[in-house]
């Protein structure tokens, strides 16, 4: 598995890692910073991670996905720091023999990552900033 927390995501890294002679399908999800959210202009996002725990939780998710689906490899890369609109902040990639498993596992991984991995996002608008999900 390729599990990383990085300052800057290289979009070429996960596909290069996942390509192999054994597999027929790769699904890749890339989350990027949108320049607007709920009708407001987003200037940038700041991401912060509790790194040793985040890596551990991402490893657990990768292993769980490998139990749930017949996957060859899993890549989970998350960025931290100051991110501008258009910049990638998360990459999930999986490889499998057939495409069904690749789509399902990739979708499950991004959904679960958002629930359990200790990473926090602060959105900066023109007039204020908020820690996403913090309040009900």
């Amino acid at each position, binding site marked *: 598995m390729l599990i990383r927390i990085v300052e800057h995501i290289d979009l070429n890294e996960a596909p290069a890692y996942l390509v192999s002679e054994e597999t027929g399908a790769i699904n890749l999800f890339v989350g990027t910073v949108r320049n607007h959210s709920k009708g407001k202009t987003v200037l940038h996002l700041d991401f912060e991670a509790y790194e040793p725990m985040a890596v551990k939780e991402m490893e657990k998710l990768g292993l769980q996905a490998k139990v749930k689906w017949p996957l060859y490899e899993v890549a989970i890369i998350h960025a931290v720091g100051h991110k501008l609109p258009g910049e990638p902040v*998360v990459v999930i990639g999986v490889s499998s023999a057939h495409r069904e498993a690749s789509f399902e596992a990739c979708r499950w991984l*991004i959904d679960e990552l*958002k629930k359990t991995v200790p990473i926090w996002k602060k959105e900066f608008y023109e007039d204020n900033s908020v820690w996403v*999900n913090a309040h009900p």
Partner: protein
Amino acid sequence: MEILLFGITRDIAGKPRITVPADTPLATVGDLKTWLGDQYPAIKALSSVAIAVDSEYAEDSQTISSHSEIALIPPVSGG
């Protein structure tokens, strides 16, 4: 005992960690959550609060020791 803070809880406390006084009677994760809520009422207003012990999510019933790395985990928002 020191509690690592992240995201909004670091903003609430105004510092990256909270030091729990040595004579505070905290046996479990649940006790620690109660104590933190009393010290920082804004923490009680969050959508959820979890505690990680040695970088694993911990149940309220888990006992804590000052030898462990303890972190306060506010609602996550990665991805």
